[in-house]
C-alpha cells in the first residue's frame, strides 16, 4: 500500500491527460483523491501501531535502493495531504470550471494529480535525492497551476516562483551532494548514522546551510517569502486552497526531517546556530507580515500574507528544539492547513459569484452570501485561535512550549500575532456585515462549493474539540524526532 499512495496519483495524472476535456478528468481526479485518503488513513493507523513502516522500491535493500519510510511524523502529513485533496477536489470541479477554459481540463487535472503525487512522494520517501525528484514534480505542476490563473499577473507570479523555487531546489541539491561526498550515501537513515562521524567538517556545515536555505525558500520563511503573495493571489481559487494548505507544509516537514532526523538535533542546535537564526526570522516574519496583511485590498492577498505569518509560528516551534515545541509545530502544520483551506475555499465561493475577492465587493456580503461569510468567519476565528477551534489547540501548545523554556517575550509575540489576526479578520467582517450592500440581491454560492467548504469548517471544530488523534500523532512524532535531545543516544 505504501508505494501506491504515490504511484496511483502519479499514474492517475497520465490517465487524466488521456481523458477527453470536460467533467471526466475532474471525476477521475476526485476518485483518485478519495483513494489517497482511504490509503493514507490505513497507513497512518499502521504507522501508529508499528512505529515505522519501511518499503524497498524494486526490492533493493537500502541504502542501495530507494526506501519509503513512514513513521508518525510523515503519517500525519500524508493524512493531511490526502484529507485536503479529498475535500478540495470535489470543490475544484465547479470552481475551476469558472476560471479555466474547458479544453484545458485534462492538463489541469493531470497537473493537480502530479502536484499531489509530488507532495505525497516527498512526505513518504526515505531517500534524500528522491526528495529532490518529487520536489520538482510537484513544483513543475505548481508553476503550471499558478500560470493558469485568469489575471496576466498569474504568469509573472508563476515565473518568479519558478526562478525562486528552482534556486531553492538547486541549493537543496548542492547540500545533498556535499553530504554524499562525505558519507557516500543518500538514504536518510544511513545519512543520520554516518553524519556524526564527519560532523566536525566544514563541508557538513555548508551542506546544512544549503539545505536549510533551499528548503526555507520553498517554505517561504521571511525574508525568502517574496514569491508567495503573488502566487497565492493570482492562482485559481481551488489551487490556492490546496497549495496554501499543503505545499508549504510539506516544505516544513522536509525542514523538520533534515534538522531532526538526518542531521540530528544535537548537531543542528549544538554545532550550528540554527535556533539563533530560525527564531528571530520567525518572529520578525510573523509580526511584519501580519501588519502587511492588514493593509491589503485583496482579501486573497491578505490571507497569503497571513500564511507567511503562520509559517512563522511553525518555524518558531521547530526552532525551540524541544519535544513540546516540535509538537506545537507539527500540530500547527495540520491545523493551519484546515483553517487556511476553509478560508480560501470560502474566498473561492466569493470569486465564483462575484469574480473577484477585492474588499470593495464585500459590503453587505453577510446578507448576500450568508453561508459563505459564516464559513469565512468560522475559519477566521480558528485563525485567530479562539477556544474550541484547532487554531487554539496549536497556539496553546506553542505558548506552553515557550513558557517551558521561559521565553516570555515569545509568549508576548504569539499573543500580539493573534491580536493582529483579529484586526485583519475583523476588517473583513466589519465590511461584510456592517456596511450596506450596493446591490442587495442574494447570491449564495451553490451547494457543490458550500459543502466542501463547510466540511473543512466542521473539521476545524472537530479537531478543536476532539484532539486525541492529532495531538496523539504529533506527540508521538515529536518524541521520536527529539530522541537525541532528551538524554537519549545521539
Amino acid at each position: 500500500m505504501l508505494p501506491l499512495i504515490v504511484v496511483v496519483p502519479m499514474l492517475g495524472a497520465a490517465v487524466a491527460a488521456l481523458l477527453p476535456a470536460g467533467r471526466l478528468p475532474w471525476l477521475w481526479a476526485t476518485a483518485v483523491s478519495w483513494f489517497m485518503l482511504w490509503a493514507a488513513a490505513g497507513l497512518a493507523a499502521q504507522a501508529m501501531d508499528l512505529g515505522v513502516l519501511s518499503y524497498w522500491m524494486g526490492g533493493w535493500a537500502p541504502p542501495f535502493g530507494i526506501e519509503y519510510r513512514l513513521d508518525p511524523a510523515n503519517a500525519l502529513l500524508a493524512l493531511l495531504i490526502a484529507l485536503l485533496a479529498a475535500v478540495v477536489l470535489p470543490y475544484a470541479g465547479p470552481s475551476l470550471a469558472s476560471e479555466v477554459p474547458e479544453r484545458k481540463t485534462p492538463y489541469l487535472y493531470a497537473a493537480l494529480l502530479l502536484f499531489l503525487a509530488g507532495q505525497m512522494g516527498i512526505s513518504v520517501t526515505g531517500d534524500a535525492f528522491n526528495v529532490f525528484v518529487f520536489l520538482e514534480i510537484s513544483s513543475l505542476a505548481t508553476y503550471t497551476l499558478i500560470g493558469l490563473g485568469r489575471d496576466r499577473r498569474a504568469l509573472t507570479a508563476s515565473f518568479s516562483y519558478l526562478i525562486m523555487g528552482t534556486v531553492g531546489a538547486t541549493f537543496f541539491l548542492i547540500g545533498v551532494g556535499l553530504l554524499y561526498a562525505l558519507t557516500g550515501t543518500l538514504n536518510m537513515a544511513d545519512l543520520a548514522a554516518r553524519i556524526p562521524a564527519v560532523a566536525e567538517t566544514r563541508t557538513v556545515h555548508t551542506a546544512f546551510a544549503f539545505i536549510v536555505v533551499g528548503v526555507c525558500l520553498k517554505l517561504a520563511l521571511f525574508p525568502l517569502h517574496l514569491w508567495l503573495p503573488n502566487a497565492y493571489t493570482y492562482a485559481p481559487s481551488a489551487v490556492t486552497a490546496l497549495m496554501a494548505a499543503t505545499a508549504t507544509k510539506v516544505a516544513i516537514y522536509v525542514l523538520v526531517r533534515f534538522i531532526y532526523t538526518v542531521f540530528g538535533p544535537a548537531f543542528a542546535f549544538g554545532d550550528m546556530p540554527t535556533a539563533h537564526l530560525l527564531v528571530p526570522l520567525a518572529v520578525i516574519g510573523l509580526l511584519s507580515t501580519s501588519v502587511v496583511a492588514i493593509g491589503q485590498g485583496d482579501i486573497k492577498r491578505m490571507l497569503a500574507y497571513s500564511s507567511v505569518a503562520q509559517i512563522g509560528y511553525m518555524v518558531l516551534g521547530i526552532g525551540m528544539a524541544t519535544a513540546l515545541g516540535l509538537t506545537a509545530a507539527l500540530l500547527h502544520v495540520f491545523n493551519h492547513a484546515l483553517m487556511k483551506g476553509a478560508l480560501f475555499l470560502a474566498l473561492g465561493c466569493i470569486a465564483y459569484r462575484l469574480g473577484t475577492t477585492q474588499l470593495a465587493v464585500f459590503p453587505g456580503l453577510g446578507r448576500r452570501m450568508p453561508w459563505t461569510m459564516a464559513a469565512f468567519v468560522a475559519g477566521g476565528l480558528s485563525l485567530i485561535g479562539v477556544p474550541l477551534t484547532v487554531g487554539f489547540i496549536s497556539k496553546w501548545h506553542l505558548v506552553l512550549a515557550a513558557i517551558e523554556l521561559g521565553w516570555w517575550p515569545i509568549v508576548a509575540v504569539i499573543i500580539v500575532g493573534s491580536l493582529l489576526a483579529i484586526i485583519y479578520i475583523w476588517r473583513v467582517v466589519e465590511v461584510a456585515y456592517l456596511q450596506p450592500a450596493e446591490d442587495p440581491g442574494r447570491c449564495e454560492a451553490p451547494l457543490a462549493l458550500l459543502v466542501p467548504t463547510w466540511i473543512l469548517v466542521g473539521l476545524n471544530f472537530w479537531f478543536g474539540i476532539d484532539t486525541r488523534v492529532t495531538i496523539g500523532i504529533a506527540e508521538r512524532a515529536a518524541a521520536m524526532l527529539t530522541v537525541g535531545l532528551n538524554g537519549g543516544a545521539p
Partner: protein
Amino acid sequence: MDTVVDILLLAFLAVCAIAILRLRDLFAMAMMFGLFSLITAGLFTTMDAPDVAFTEAAVGAGISTILMLATLAQTARREQPVTGRSKLLPLLVVWVTGAVLIYGTVDLPAFGDPSAPVHTHVAPYYLQQSTADIGIPNVVASILASYRGYDTLGEVVVVFAAVVGVLALLGLRARPPRVVRRPVRRLDQHAVLKVIAKLVVPVILLFALYVQFHGEYSPGGGFQAGVIFAAAIILFALVFGLDEARQVIPPRVLQRLPAAGVLIFGGTGLLTMLLGGNYLDYDMLRESPQKAQQMGIIMVEIGVGVTVASVMLLIYFTFAERGRHRRPDGNGDDGPGGAAE
C-alpha cells in the same frame, strides 16, 4: 594531461558564461549557451561520465538551445540595458554563496581520491554486484533502471509534468493545417540542406534506435535515444517545414504518447506488484533473476524513450506553432529556425 584538459575546458566554460552574461544580442547569447553545454559535455567525457556527457550534449546543446531560439524568435532579439537597479544585492548574494561554497570544499576529499567515502560506501556494491544481480556491463544503466529505477520513474514524470505545463499554457492545435505550398520559403530552398537532411535524418533515427536498445552495453538508454529521435524530426521540421513534419506524426497521436510512456514504466511496477513482488522488482517477471532484470530494464527504457521523444517533439511543435501565429509578417512555415537565420 587530464588535468590540463580539465582546467582548459573549465576555463572555456567560464569564458562562455561571462559571454552569456554580457552579450546583448540574445541570439548570439543562445548560440553561446549551446556552446557552453557542448563544452560541458566534453568535460563530462574527460571525467569518465559518458552517459551524462551524451545527455548534456543532446539536451543542453540541442533541445534547450532550440527552445531558447524559438522563444527569442517570438519575443525580443536584444536585451535592454539594465537601468536604475542596484548591483549591490546581486553581488552580495553571489559572493556569500560563493564564499560559503569554497568554505565547504575545504574539507572535501581531494579530487579523484579513490579512498573518498563516495568510493568506499554504496557505490562499490553496484560495481561488484551489478554483474551478478543484473548481468549487464553498463553499471549506470543498471542503477538507473533498476537499483534506483524509482528515481528514473520520477524523472520521466518530471518530463511529463513539463509537457502538461507547456500544453496547458500554450496549447497545440489537434489537427495539422493543410499543407499549402508557399512561393517564398527560407530554408527549404537550399538544395544542399535538403539533400543532406534527407541523408542524415534516417541515419539519426537509426542511431536513436541503437542507443535505445544498446544502452545496457554502452553509454545510452531511453532518455538519450528519445532526445536523439526528437532531434532528427526537429531537423526535418527545420529544413522541410513544420507542417510536413507534423504530417509524419499526427499531433493527436503524439499528444497521447507522453502519458503512454509514463504508463508503460509505471505499469511495469504495478505488474511486478501483481506478481507478488515489490514495486519495480523485476525479479518477478521471469524465472531467472538476471533475465528478469534485463527484461524489466528493456520495458522501462521503452517507456522512457517514448515519453522523452514525444515530449521533446510536442514542446518543439508547440513553441514553433505559437511563433508562427504571432509573427507579424505571417510567413513562417519554417518554424523558429527560419526566423533565427
